[in-house]
């Protein structure tokens, strides 16, 4: 039973507010002296973690839609995707502003020489065209096929994002590994479905021709 337009609007508004929770947490912790001894590190990590979280949540929409039959979930995906960009942008600005304080020399050096920063920066750059083409006008202008092709780059972005996290940690790779496994499941589900679909088409073709 798909929701009525009114229910969907409420759903969207609630999701919009819920997605601001990680940001609200930072404001609250900042207010209540809860950011720890190294607040800039805390803020950077928190925003980075939530960028990855939203990326995985966004990638979970399609599998969830198919498994549950709730096809209206697709109507929420753009907002989730834009929140990925929102938190990635905040994460990047935190690095640029709070961490490096616009020291362009050392930023350029970091991006060129530090693999984990190269990866993070690449993922951020690749997100920009997706955010820029997220509205209906751009979808129309690009045409559905090309738009879909462009937005498939999110798979690569997600992989680069997890690699960015993996390369950053010193020794304990438990959390990056968890993200890698979850991403593997989300992408694996798609690969499996694609393979099955191709097989079905092949069989259909053989049936028709035979």
């Amino acid at each position, binding site marked *: 039973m798909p929701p009525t337009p009114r229910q969907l609007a409420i759903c969207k508004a609630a999701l919009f507010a819920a997605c601001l929770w990680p940001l609200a947490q*930072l*404001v609250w*912790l*900042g*207010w209540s*002296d*809860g*950011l*720890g*001894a*190294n*607040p*800039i*590190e805390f*803020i950077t990590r928190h925003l980075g973690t939530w960028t990855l979280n939203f990326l995985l949540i966004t990638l979970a929409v399609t599998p969830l839609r198919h498994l549950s039959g709730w096809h209206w979930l697709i109507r929420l995906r753009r907002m989730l995707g834009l929140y990925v960009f929102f938190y990635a942008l905040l994460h990047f600005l935190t690095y640029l502003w*709070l961490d*490096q*304080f*616009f*020291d362009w020399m*050392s930023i350029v*050096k*970091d991006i060129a*020489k*530090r*693999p*984990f920063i190269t990866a993070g920066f690449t993922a951020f750059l690749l997100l920009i065209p997706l955010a820029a083409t997220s509205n209906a006008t751009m979808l129309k202008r690009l045409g559905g096929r090309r738009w879909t092709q462009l937005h498939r780059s999110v798979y690569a972005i997600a992989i680069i994002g997890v690699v960015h996290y993996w*390369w*950053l940690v*010193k*020794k*304990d790779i*438990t959390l990056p590994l968890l993200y890698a496994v979850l991403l593997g499941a989300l992408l694996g589900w798609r690969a499996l479905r694609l393979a099955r679909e191709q097989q079905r088409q092949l069989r259909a073709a053989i049936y028709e021709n035979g």
Partner: protein
Amino acid sequence: MLIRRPNDIAPSEITPRALFEGRRDFIRSAGATVLFGAALAAGLPHRTWASGKFTDLQKSPYSVLETPNSFRDITTYNNFVEFGFGGKSQPAERAGAMKTHPWTVGIEGLVQKPRTLAIEDILKIAPLEERIYRLRCVEGWSMVIPWVGFPLAALIRQVEPLGSARYVGFITQMEPAAMPGLRLPYIDFPYTEGLRLDEALHPLTIMAVGLYGDVLPNQNGAPLRLVVPWKYGFKSGKSIVKIRFTDKPPRTSWNIAQPDEYGFYANVNPDVSHPRWSQEKERRIGEFFKRKTLPFNGYADLVAPLYAGMDLRKNY
């Protein structure tokens, strides 16, 4: 607007400059607070001098005049991998379970008089001093810490090293029930660190037994830890149970785990990058702007002669 720090502070000028810069830092921090709001105010030092167990501490000419970090920052932002690799707050949350009494330290290897000393006896080896030192972590942050301790040289004299002794290894306690980190496969335990004998005998090198005039909190390496202020923090082993004199460099834990990232010397050096990040700057905990990292953590005039003629890029 970008306020630049002077980049070349001669360490010998540190005394008058430190005061002067402390003032600048305060102004800058205050400016930053106004600019960036309450979120960052959280990071400003809370200057609360605790008075505790150790009284009549000698002041030391080796102390820096910079303002120490707050007790809270020093005791809640730690690396002590026996209590986990997963975050700076883990040691403070978990180290309380470690038993630090009774405590003995075995001193062995190439010495005339190997012995096992109880912590009570160690405390009597030399008058305790307050040593306010900079600490620079290999991860790119730094603090100023008011340790209580005594020169390691005084302890070494007690055991009379043989002529063949060239290195000293420091081995950290293993208490599996209290230390979940021991079960993780990332580095070899017991945590082992080491110095060349001349580094160990240097007057800046201390065994610390206290912090802010009181006994060391467990997460800072109670009851006894090494402090070598011109080296990255991981060289300064915590909760030491064994000190071993050898003729060859001891195999040290981080060096075994990642030799390209953690050298045996690990002298603070802005010119040698960690493979994953630059070491040119550091964030002093409590400050907004990064500082330039100084060679040998600002102690170059005292320790650079130890490395005369050595290629510090190779011997990182």
